[in-house]
């Protein structure tokens, strides 16, 4: 610093704050090879959303949303996504625990396989579901023979398809939390006389609570937006298997305004999900 050699032309605090500002500015400077692509990327991601807001038929919105078919789709979507999330919690949390805690050879292969639906094209997910649970599928035939229940092209089928796609999101989130959770608390509980199941219920689960919530919200959002597996496995029957994304797709052909309105509804839901997850998922980028 050369400030000591300079005549005291300005008050020292002012000089110091100006200097600090300059330092901050130079630290914050963005080199253009990074800045320009960054700007383009941001525009690319945000412009379509802005377009949706601009093109939204705001005046017609109440009429479109009050349409019984839209309401049916919305109700069905919320119902099926919630059911899929519940199934994911009931079965996915124990699986996440086993994956995190069971130290046997091959457990990492199992982990990779059960999270496959994360990267599998959803349509393929629908196809494999048909092969397994379809009327002629290996499990579907048994189910049909023994109970008379068939899953494809039913509301239950929608739930199955959404669970298949959404549960892995819950599993990886919660498994990471189980893995990261301090085992010390569980050991303390054991020395106090708690059985393993009691430890799980009273210590482990509460400790991973925030991740559990994040995983549930994430899988619910994923289930709500599910399209490919649902339309393949459950079809597109209004009132029975036509969820919001399917309704948007259909509406795009015969009533574009309705498609835009429905998209707006899904956008609002997505923003709500993001807001609820901002601490757990977005800032760290990990399942914490």
């Amino acid at each position: 610093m050369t400030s000591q050699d300079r005549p005291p032309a300005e008050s020292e605090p002012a000089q110091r704050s100006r200097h600090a500002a300059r330092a901050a500015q130079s630290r914050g400077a963005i080199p253009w090879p990074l800045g320009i692509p960054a700007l383009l990327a941001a525009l690319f991601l945000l412009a379509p959303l802005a377009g949706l807001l601009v093109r939204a038929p705001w005046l017609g919105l109440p009429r479109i949303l009050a349409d019984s078919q839209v309401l049916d789709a919305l109700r069905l979507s919320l119902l099926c996504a919630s059911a899929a999330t519940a199934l994911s919690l009931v079965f996915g949390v124990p699986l996440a625990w086993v994956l995190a805690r069971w130290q046997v050879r091959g457990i990492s292969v199992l982990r990779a396989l059960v999270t496959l639906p994360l990267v599998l094209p959803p349509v393929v997910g629908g196809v494999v579901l048909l092969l397994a649970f379809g009327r002629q599928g290996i499990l579907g035939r048994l189910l049909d023979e023994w109970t008379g229940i068939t899953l494809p092209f039913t509301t239950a089928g929608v739930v199955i398809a959404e669970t298949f796609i959404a549960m892995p999101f819950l599993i990886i989130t919660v498994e990471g939390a189980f893995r990261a959770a301090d085992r010390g608390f569980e050991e303390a509980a054991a020395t106090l006389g708690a059985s393993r199941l009691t430890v799980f219920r009273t210590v482990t689960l509460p400790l991973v609570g925030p991740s559990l919530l994040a995983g549930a919200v994430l899988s619910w959002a994923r289930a709500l937006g599910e399209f490919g597996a649902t339309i393949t496995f459950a079809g597109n029957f209004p009132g029975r298997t036509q969820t919001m994304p399917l309704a948007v797709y259909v509406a795009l052909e015969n009533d574009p305004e309705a498609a835009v309105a429905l998209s707006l509804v899904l956008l609002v839901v997505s923003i709500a999900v993001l807001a609820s997850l901002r601490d757990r998922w977005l800032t760290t980028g990990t399942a914490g």
Partner: protein
Amino acid sequence: MTVNAGEALVMSGTVERGSFRLEADLRAIPGEVLGVLGPNGAGKTTLLRALSGLDALTSGTIRLGDLTLDDVATDTFVPAQRRPVGMVFQNYRLFPHMDVRDNVAYAPRVQGAGRRQARAAADTWLERLDLTALATRRPHQISGGQAQQVALARALAANPRFLLLDEPLSALDAKTRLDVRAHLHSHLDQFTGPVLIITHDPLEAMIMADRLLVIENGRVVQEGSPAQVASQPATQYVARLVGLNLYTGTLEVATRRVFLDAGGTFTVTLSEDDPTAAAPDGQSTRPVLVGLRPSAITIHTALPTHGSPRNVWKGTVTGLEQLTDRVRVQVDAAPPALVDISAAAVDDLSLRPGTAVWLSAKATETEAYPDPGNHRKP
């Protein structure tokens, strides 16, 4: 204190974890506080985990009175959840999602008491340890010293028949440590079962423990009363902890001279009950340890001339460390030594690194005792 010989905690066995191996024989009698002292990585925590049932022995047995807790030969293993153990962990491990009362009520609750009953039991313990005011606080809202007390209350609420404490005071600052140590001491006095305290702080061990077990490199290297361990350390580690210069050497019985492994010769005093004095098997020389207090050594800048039988040797100052009430001078010599003198003396002698000095120690202050041979790494 009720003495009940049937409830001694006795372990004789080994624990292997990866390449680390702990071998321990110990016996803690009811009402006794057994201090387990050792450097980091010595196997103290491994020992505690085996005793608590969090880990199993690789060989041997652990018994509490007539109750077998672990016996590899008969494939008996009582896991932590069914052992009558009370454990206070190093960082306390209070459940962060429960308040203090529910933490203390945890053991009664999981052992079958109703919520109301468990909370009543917790309140009794909180009252006994003077923690009632904290009942509704969460662990992050209380101080380290308070957390230590709550952890003890939580362990005691399980009605354990033996207590294990892992570095109970190490997470506390120096001032809190004094208070908590006093509390802990009085509560442990009231506990009727065996108590094991792990620590790497010799002062803590000396004050809290009735008996000490020193562990190094996975083996018990010394066992005895705090006074014994402090005055006749068996290894360099303990000597350093209690602030003694410790030398290995060979005693020539007839002349009471010790030829030190680090160089030099000392004329020594032999402890009264020292079997080396008699040289029972007729040998004229024996391996011994020589302990010398840093305050028993005098520093001179010229060769001292006066009287009484002394060990005198020459060296160079390599370092000066300010302790609370004195200065510890490191002297490189044969043998090397730590010497404690007053700050005024440092000035008088104008000591600084590099100063050539003479050291002297009276033979009466230079005590030799048998070398158990534990300082040599296996």
